[in-house]
């Protein structure tokens, strides 16, 4: 079970990142949970300085951009 967390205050890019993360997990056929972390002080606990960001199992794998589905697949495997 992969734990996916999208860090961002809820702008369109955050939503696109969540969509891409879900699409990547589905394409890989893995079980996942998706959490949207929108509280700025919770986001900062990850050490993230730019959003949107994606954490996989608690490790931030991208920040400040929306990676493609393929890029996220490689972050998960």
């Amino acid at each position, binding site marked *: 079970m992969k734990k996916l967390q999208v860090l961002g205050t809820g*702008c369109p*890019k955050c939503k696109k990142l969540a969509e891409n993360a879900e699409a990547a997990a589905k394409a890989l056929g893995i079980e996942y949970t998706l959490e949207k972390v929108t509280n700025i002080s919770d986001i900062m606990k*990850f*050490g*993230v300085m*730019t959003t949107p*960001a994606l954490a996989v199992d608690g490790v*931030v794998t991208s*920040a*400040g951009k929306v990676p493609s589905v393929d890029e996220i697949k490689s972050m998960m495997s």
Partner: protein
Amino acid sequence: MAKCSCAGGVKVVLPCSGSANVGQIANEAAKRLDIEGTAKFFCTAGLGGHVSGMVASVKGADKVLVLDGCPVGCARKCAEEAGISGFERVVVSELGIEKKHEFNIAEADIQKVVAQCRATLSASGAKKGAGCCG
């Protein structure tokens, strides 16, 4: 404060913040570049410590400026160890400022470093993305 980077064009400055006049000039210059809006001052120690959010934030920036106090290059090594590449670099001691283990830093030296950082960043030019939050 985490910054929404939806507008793109994020520039980052990573000073060594070392225990010498040149390290502290680098730190002060980074503060001023952030305050004036030229580049975001990020935590170089976080890169050195492989804090995943810091590393990912720097990798996601459009332009990275490493600001070392002297040729030892501690900020550069932190960046390289964290897998950051393609960065610009300014070295304070190469601007005619002698390295000393003291902390009396001169205003003129700070301004010289800030000016060099501005010039380096504007010469390299960051790409701008489309905004989305407004």
